[in-house]
């Protein structure tokens, strides 16, 4: 994330040019996961797959450890990160819970109750 972004809303990410440059290779990897054959290849050797796409050490660690927050910190776009989550059978609500420190069930309940109103 770029702290110099012209748009800097509090407590959220702006996927801008700097973030896209930082996360480019990782997002490119995520994009391939639309293809079933690529998913098989990835799952067979995730580290090798990350290396092939030229991910940084920190990005590789985040991907292998499914550290969703770190992926965003390292330039992941949620629309791309989500492809990895989908492959794992996880929902956007699950990710929402991760990003807000809640369980998926609590996150869903919070959304049904109207979501956040303090930002």
């Amino acid at each position, binding site marked *: 994330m770029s702290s110099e972004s012209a748009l800097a809303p509090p407590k*959220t990410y702006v996927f801008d040019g700097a973030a896209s440059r930082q996360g480019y290779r990782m997002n490119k990897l995520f994009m391939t996961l639309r293809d079933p054959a690529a998913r098989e290849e990835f799952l067979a050797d995730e580290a090798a797959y990350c290396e092939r796409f030229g991910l940084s050490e920190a990005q590789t660690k985040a991907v292998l450890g499914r550290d969703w927050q770190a992926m965003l910190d390292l330039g992941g*776009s949620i629309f791309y990160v989500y492809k990895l989550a989908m492959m794992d059978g996880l929902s956007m609500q699950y990710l929402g819970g991760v990003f807000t420190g809640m369980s998926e069930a609590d996150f869903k309940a919070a959304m049904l109750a109207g979501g956040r109103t303090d930002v």
Partner: protein
Amino acid sequence: MSEVIWGLATSHVPSIGAAMDRGMTQEPVWKPLFDGYRPAREWLAQHKPDVAVLVYNDHANGIDLDIVPTFGIGTADRYSVADEGFGRRPVPDVVGDPDLSLHLLQNLMDEGFDLTVFQELNVDHGFTVPLSIWTPEPGEAWPCPVVPLLVNVIQYPQPTAARCYALGQALGRALASYEAPARSASWAPAACPTSSPGRAPGSSTRRSTTCSSTRSRTTRRSSPRSPARTSSARPAPRASS
């Protein structure tokens, strides 16, 4: 000349499509939303256009981050429904209207909008959900050809609201000047950003549901010199907000 006969504005969050595909529209959590669509659907079913223009954004399905076009237009005669990672939605592929696409491209470029041209494009939920809201059960095909008009919302900076508004106005003029060979044309912009989950612990995990969509009909005029009918869309049936 062409006439805009309606506009539809709707959210396109993928879960709306999933709820329809899985027969969940009458479940308590979904019913209020779909009840809200009913009046618009009934009205729209009686006002079938000849062609639609759908303004939307892709979500890492038709386009990746190699190239991030600010505005784009499809000029193909067919658009496949994308597999977004969980199998493609069980809805028909989209038939395009290359003649109208090229007319719009020329006119919008002449007005200063530098559009990226897509001769191939897989359309994702940003495109198919608005179509489903209009036509819940399309059967083998959607009711009319559809032209995709893309607006980047995936990577900042996005075009300004003022620029998008100007594009919409230019689109209206371009449609009004379209002389379709013996058929009508209609259009349906539907652009809708979906905001993403933010940073913990104070993150905002809202999903924006602002989305606009418009359509129109082209009717053949008896005289080619007749003044272009300003495409002042009728009040857009408000499907959801």
